């Protein structure tokens, strides 16, 4: 074992927050290519120098025969080093006779030697933000299948704030630690765990893979991110008043009630009301739409409303929560019956309620496909896709996890693909967002501004 690069043993019997921290340590070391020394839980320990000076330093337990703690202060010999500070436990959601949940403030502290990571790039810029972006992506879009929920609260690059709990001097004149090529940053987060952590993964995707019951799945913490391998940069935020995206007219969108189809998208609804539409080819009671009625998902296939009512409307039993991001999907088998409609939330098949079931006439119309309307929705939407086949559960899970339809059948049958702000162009007052299928040139915004392109959900 080298003193400079010690082997940090992995605990075999970790429990509770320690299990979560060890998993996070391993996860970060795997995800961040520049993190050469990803260490685990650090403690504030007093160290007395030979001159009797006392310092509080971050120490990581080594578990050797000497039961040593290792000084995990920043070190320019290490390409990238991280330590994890854990604060006090706060019990939340306590119910007698049930598992409770615990919340911990957890800080991830990074130091890195930029020169060893990319000396060429360092000639022109301080690329600390690149490293922070790597961490951010790992902790939001890439983290999945964990037995804990993690939320980023604050980030800082100020040296004194990064090491606020410790007596680590800047030592600029002596060691150059706070100057380039060294860089330092910190992510303050909250980790939530169930009392029996790590026995049951808490996110819903992993719950499905482990065949948990619907009750258990409903109890799982809903992650505030979508899909495991999925990654893009931008979503579009719709105000639920008059903002929407409109597709050019194309015969490929003329879905009939006897056609099967699948629609997937990622949504974060800000407020619920009556009907609001994610995507529709619908106006005045004629056509099809996928959206929400109240907080529940709805698919409607309609010939006419009013006295001539001829419609199929089905909604979910389960509700979405405002401000939470979901992957939502609906499949339809072309039978014009309620049983032909399946909804999925974060890859989980839902139970349904039939609202109307008397559809027997055509639903085709001359209206354009609209994303975010025409009954406008107050939501952020990302990665809207539609296929002219009915997906299986496995294909829905694939779209949820990977975010990219890798199956050739899926690609051939895709009729709508809009990755929202990614590769979008903003003209004088209009966004043009490309259609990734190539069926049309793109989706043009109505009444949307440059600032309506927001970070990906």
């Amino acid at each position, binding site marked *: 074992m080298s003193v400079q690069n010690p082997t940090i043993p992995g605990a075999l019997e970790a429990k509770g927050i320690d299990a979560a921290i060890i998993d996070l340590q391993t996860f970060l070391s795997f995800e961040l290519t520049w993190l050469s020394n990803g260490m685990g839980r650090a403690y504030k320990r007093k160290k007395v120098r030979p001159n009797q000076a006392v310092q509080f330093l971050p120490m990581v337990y080594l578990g050797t025969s000497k039961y040593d703690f290792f000084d995990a202060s920043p070190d320019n010999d290490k390409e990238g080093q991280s330590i994890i500070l854990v604060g006090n436990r706060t019990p939340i959601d306590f119910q007698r006779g049930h598992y409770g949940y615990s919340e911990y403030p957890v800080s991830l502290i990074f130091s890195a030697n930029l020169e060893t990571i990319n000396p060429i790039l360092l000639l022109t810029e301080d690329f600390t933000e690149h490293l922070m972006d790597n961490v951010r992506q790992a902790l939001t879009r890439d983290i999945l299948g964990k037995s804990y929920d993690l939320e980023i609260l604050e980030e800082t690059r100020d040296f004194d704030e990064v090491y606020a709990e410790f007596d680590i001097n800047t030592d600029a004149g002596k060691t150059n630690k706070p100057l380039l090529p060294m860089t330092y940053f910190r992510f303050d987060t909250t980790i939530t765990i169930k009392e029996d952590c790590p026995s049951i993964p808490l996110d819903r995707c992993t719950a499905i893979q482990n065949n948990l019951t619907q009750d258990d799945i409903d109890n799982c913490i809903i992650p505030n991110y979508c899909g495991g391998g999925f990654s893009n940069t931008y979503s579009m935020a719709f*105000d*639920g*008043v*008059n903002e929407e995206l409109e597709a050019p007219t194309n015969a490929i969108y003329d879905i009939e009630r006897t056609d099967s189809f699948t629609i997937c998208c990622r949504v974060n609804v800000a*407020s619920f*009301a*009556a*009907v609001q539409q994610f995507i529709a080819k619908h106006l005045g*009671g004629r056509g099809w739409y996928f959206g929400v*009625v109240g907080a529940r998902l*709805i698919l*409607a296939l309609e010939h006419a*409303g*009013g006295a001539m*009512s001829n419609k199929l*409307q089905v909604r979910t039993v389960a509700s979405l929560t405002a401000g939470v991001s979901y992957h939502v999907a609906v499949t339809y088998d072309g039978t014009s019956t309620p049983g032909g409609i399946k909804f999925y939330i974060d890859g989980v098949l839902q139970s349904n309620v039939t*609202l*109307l079931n008397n559809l027997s006439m055509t639903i085709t119309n001359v209206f354009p496909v609209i994303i975010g309307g025409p*009954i*406008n929705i*107050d939501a952020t939407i990302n990665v809207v896709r539609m296929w002219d086949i009915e997906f299986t559960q496995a294909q829905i899970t694939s779209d949820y996890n990977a975010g990219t339809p890798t199956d050739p059948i899926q690609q051939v049958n895709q009729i709508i693909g809009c990755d929202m702000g990614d590769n979008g162009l903003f003209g004088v*007052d*209009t966004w043009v967002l490309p259609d990734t299928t190539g069926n049309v040139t793109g989706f043009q915004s*109505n*009444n*949307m*501004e440059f*600032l309506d392109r927001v970070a990906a959900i």
Partner: protein
Amino acid sequence: MDDNRYYIVNMNDPNILAIGQLSVGALGSQRVSLDGTQAIIKLPKGDETQYPELEGYEQYNHSQIREIVFEPEWYNEEVG
């Protein structure tokens, strides 16, 4: 974060074309009441100018206008 300011304007307002120039998006793409007599327009985020063309019209914030668009004059989707 800067918010939009919303207004419900009369389509027969003699200044309607000028109002359309102020709003985000073209006048023809704005949300119109079911009877076609009124439209909802909004000013760009952060625009705090008091325009004479909008004098006499009530100003709404996002949550206020969201309640209005689900009133019968603006909304008619039948469900169930």
